């Protein structure tokens, strides 16, 4: 998708295509259904072994 910021994908946080008053937006020729922004929270992780 191209817009006035070149290759930048617009911040569509909270966008849902299903909402009837929203315009259709396309990315790489595909219709954008939604953009959901989620906060990253701290997590304690340990590394296991890859499953074969």
């Amino acid at each position, binding site marked *: 998708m191209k817009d006035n910021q*070149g290759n930048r994908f617009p*911040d569509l946080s909270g966008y849902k*295509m299903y909402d009837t008053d929203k315009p259709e937006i396309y*990315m790489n020729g595909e219709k954008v*259904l939604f953009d959901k922004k*989620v906060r990253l929270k*701290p*997590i304690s992780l340990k590394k296991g*072994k890859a499953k074969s």
Partner: protein
Amino acid sequence: MNTHSVQQKAFTYQEETFSEREFWNRLLAVLPDIVETFSANFNPFPVEYLQEENEEEPHEKGVQLHNQLYTASQLMSNLASANGASLPHAFDPNRVEFAGKNALISLLRRIANLTFSKNTLDILRDNPKEMAKALHDSILRIINLPRVPYELSGDLETQDLMKATIAPYLTNYQPNRSLTDGLGTMMEDPVDGLFEDQTFRIMLSSISQVPADKSFTLENNFHIYTEQLPKIDLQGKKRVVYQHAEMLVLPFKLRADHPHPPKRPIPRAKIQVTIQETENLTVLLEKEYRVKEVFLNTAIHSIVISPEECEKLPLNQDLKVEIVFRYPGREGAVYGTLKNQYITLVADKVFDRVGATVKEALPLNDVVEHRNYWHKIWRGGYNEGLPWTLKADVKYYMILGIDQDQAARLETRLKIAEEFSSEEDFSDEQFSYKAKLKTGLELTPAMLNDLLHEEGYDSISHAQLSALTCQAFQSQMNRVAHTQLSLQAESGQQISVWVYPEVDYQEVFLLKMGQVNPYGLVMDMSEEKIVFPQAVNVHFIATQHEG
């Protein structure tokens, strides 16, 4: 800007669950406080619990002591290796039959006080699981049982190897239940339950004892003292810091707890030093030193690590140094005591802490410039001639990779939890799925370094970048986004889900090595402030492809 390549990689991470952390904090974080209180008011060595000889009932007391230590060891092992779901079962104070909860805490605090320096205990108090592993390791050493790296404890190959080793003994093996029942179980499936059986575990331990020349009986009258070592405020704790790749000397004293300690020296003794990493307790270096004429309360400078040995040890992370002091007694007996002292090796600069945010939420939304940060995590559709919906519980992990130079998109693991169609309801025919989905992106410090230009900051130096390539910074950077996504499409349509992040720019404080004393101990460090990006949000974008 795409100077970095991004590989595809299997998803291998596991969460250390919250319930586990909470559980550990409640149980074990109290230990340092108890030890501190105990030390301030009482003789620090618990002779009434840990002495081997008692004039009234020497044999019974010795057996009781061994049983208590063995039970404590099992308990620590279970706690350290258990997963969240099984924790309440792994440690229910009511199940500790040998002495009850209070006696357990009393015993553990005394072992901790004996075998850890004060600042080491203070470091461990923020990581109860690590404390349990370290305590377990110490207890194994006290009762002369071999230590097993935690990375191997759940490994099936290791268990297979152990089973092959003990196979000749199995003909004599009687599980801790009725003979018929036990044999029946063994014949049906000799694998299941073996490692859960207490009798089997005791038998395994008896097969692989610590070699006799490393065994000792715990000495009650003195302990190893390292409190005189200079400390640096690093990562919120007082730490003993040495210069990396240089000669390292770790001086200590033997201090007597007896009111009238002997004035004559110990004629000859051996000092065994074991350096371990702290996550799995893997042994990195073992050395033994012979010493003569050792006086109490006098500094011993025998522990010397050469520059070549020191260079092979990892930088910028806690290392557990176990010091065992053993000396011969009467009639062939060997007595000893041990202490664990955490140290950190620093080359030049080391990560200290993350400070304030200086620039908020820059979206990495340029699909060309930021392509390395974009991740297509799923694409799918259900071509069954019906509309479909997928309700997914999604976890996206943003991880700082410090073990490799290349960033990686992790594979997407999708687990269908529920699948049903509503064919009975003709008014609303569709396939519906409920699933759990997890995936993520491993970033590298070098890749994040390139993002500094975006906001006009200079890239940080190689030495600064090296200081950030450590577990302490990694634990600050690792994040997860947890959300529910609902995808719905008509028959034949496919949906893709993309993820891209937003980053904050934050102050990060490093410490630069200052004066170093002749023992290799860093005496002071100066602060240095840099700015570095950290992922703080992710966008989940769903797109629909008309099939």
